[in-house]
């Protein structure tokens, strides 16, 4: 075990996987840093420092610093994957999916299907996402629902440094394309990270708090928020299951349904705006498959239907909060059934 930030955990995993498999390559904007400058390569080591040291260790052939051309970055990753590599592309901000969606949605996600199963495209796209650092409307979004909606890709949402390592290892070794979302507000959070080879299977949610009164389902940055809410509720004797999904595609329906069948009450916490969101997705599945078990309406705690604002006060109002989650749990607990049925 080592005590690492999520940023360090990601970096360590990239080092380990590149050392393990010479087909793993890394590409993106400033993933080296300092190319073509007096300071020289690795002078900065990646804007997020997640790729630091890779260039020194593995060289320019496997660590490719690219121009500002996201569509070409993701497309190049696709082409390298179709021809035997395991590229790990970095998208500096999730909002930039806007300029490269085609390569994710219409190319990478569909190759295997369109080609009748006769190819594989093991691309990993690491994407920094989320609000909380006042980066405003075009650098703060959390578009994991948009990605979860796409058949053909897997979507990973680590909430801790250990999970970042375990899930990124799995992602890199996976033969399907994987989108790996790293929350920028979590980069500096520290945690114990297992040494050596560490893989976490996809599609298995993690129970981070246990309790029979209500179920809270969430992922990414919101896991910590939900834990704070659960801890506050626990002080009032209210015990919640808190499920960290870890991956939203595949989704661990079993774990969610098992918990809801026990508690009868569900709160879903989602950092994105509400419409066609992961919150509504899970609500739809649970409402359909655990209908009889539900003792109260499913509550969804999401961002509002608005872009992400800049000012501190506004961004705070935008993001779901531990207090908001707590209130939602109390609301669902306060519900008294008047169902006709």
């Amino acid at each position: 075990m080592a005590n690492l930030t999520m940023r360090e955990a990601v970096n360590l995993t990239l080092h380990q996987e590149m050392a393990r498999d010479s087909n793993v390559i890394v590409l993106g904007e400033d993933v080296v840093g300092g190319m073509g400058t007096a300071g020289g390569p690795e002078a900065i080591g990646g804007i997020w420092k997640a790729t630091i040291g890779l260039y020194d260790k593995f060289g320019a052939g496997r660590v490719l610093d690219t121009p500002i051309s996201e569509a070409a970055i993701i497309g190049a990753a696709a082409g390298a994957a179709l021809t035997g590599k395991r590229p790990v592309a970095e998208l500096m901000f999730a909002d930039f999916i806007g300029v490269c969606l085609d390569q994710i949605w219409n190319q990478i996600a569909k190759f295997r299907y369109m080609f009748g199963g006769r190819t594989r495209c093991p691309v990993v796209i690491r994407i920094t996402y989320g609000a909380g650092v006042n980066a405003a409307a075009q650098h703060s979004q959390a578009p994991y629902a948009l990605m979860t909606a796409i058949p053909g890709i897997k979507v990973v949402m680590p909430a801790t440094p250990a999970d970042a390592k375990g899930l990124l290892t799995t992602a890199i070794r996976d033969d399907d394309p994987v989108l790996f979302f790293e929350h920028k507000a979590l980069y500096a959070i520290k945690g114990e990270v297992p040494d050596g080879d560490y893989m976490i299977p996809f599609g298995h949610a993690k129970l981070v708090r246990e309790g029979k009164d209500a179920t809270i389902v969430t992922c990414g940055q919101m896991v910590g928020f939900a834990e704070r809410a659960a801890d506050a509720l626990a002080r009032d004797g209210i015990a919640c299951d808190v499920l960290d999904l870890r991956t939203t595609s595949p989704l661990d329906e079993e774990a969610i349904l098992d918990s809801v069948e026990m508690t009868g009450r569900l709160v879903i916490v989602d950092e994105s705006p509400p419409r066609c969101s992961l919150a509504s997705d899970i609500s739809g599945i649970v409402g359909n498959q655990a209908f009889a078990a539900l003792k109260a309406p499913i509550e969804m705690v999401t961002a509002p239907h608005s872009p992400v604002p800049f000012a501190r006060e506004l961004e705070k109002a935008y993001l779901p909060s531990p207090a908001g989650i707590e209130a939602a749990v109390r609301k669902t607990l306060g519900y008294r059934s008047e169902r006709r049925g």
Partner: protein
Amino acid sequence: MQLSREQLIRAYRQMKTIREFEERLHTEIQTGQIAGFTHLYAGQEAVAVGVCENLTNEDYIISTHRGHGHCIAKGCDVRAMMKELFGRRDGLCKGKGGSMHIADVSKGMLGANGIVGAGAPIAVGAAISAKLDGNGRVSVTFSGDGACNQGTTFEAMNMAVVLKVPVIFVFENNHYSEHTGHKYAVGSGDIAARAEAFGMRVWRGNGSDFFDTDQIMREVVEYCRTTGLPAAVELDTERFFGHFEGDPQRYRGAGEVNRLRQERDCLTAFRAAVVSANLLDDAQLDGIDVEVLKLIDDAVADARVAPPPEASQVLEDVYISY
């Protein structure tokens, strides 16, 4: 001409196969048996074949929405292709891809592509693999005069220069993007000049002339293999059918297609050249024609009766494991 007799025969057979494949599709489509959007390559055969005859089986190509010619030229199985277009279970892509996504990665054919401009960055990626593996392979991306206005094409050219990878941008200028003339839609009209502005070497040639194309491609492929650098080629060519099957082609000048078929047919030109130079004779070429026609006949006959996919297959091949 530096080509052996075998090479000439092969080139002719390939071009002829593409031509007959497309001509036959054109009539089959009228019968209503073939669904979807189909873009025929007839007229441009000298490009696909002139390029691919200079590649090995291991080199990579990425194609466009108009992909049958590139597929055949790269060695894809013609019968499996036909079945794919008929939407059959044992089509090249199990009936899932169809005309716009026909592919055979095992042949280095990384797919037709329904998104104009999407192929160019993917070709850069294949060239990254080639460079890293140090196997001397090159990667070719075909783009039209329309595709050369799509942002991805430019990004890919710049990235290829920056990363110094052996990708060849082949621009097939057939003067139309859908129903729009290239003089209208391509700023300066000069596609190769754009590639040049990114700092790569460019070539220009007559894409309706197999020998010109072949000659240029020999140089280009040699250049890219030895330097590991990208290059671009603009080839002037013609499409003989509409943009897609069903296109009334009112944007064409009166008699334009007939004139092109008379004056700019790469097959006619090839035959004239090899016969007049006494390299092959008409009887030999006619023999190939017969064989090709038989191949296409068989492929169609096969495809017609081949079984369709099962409904349950809709959910197969989305993931390797999920």
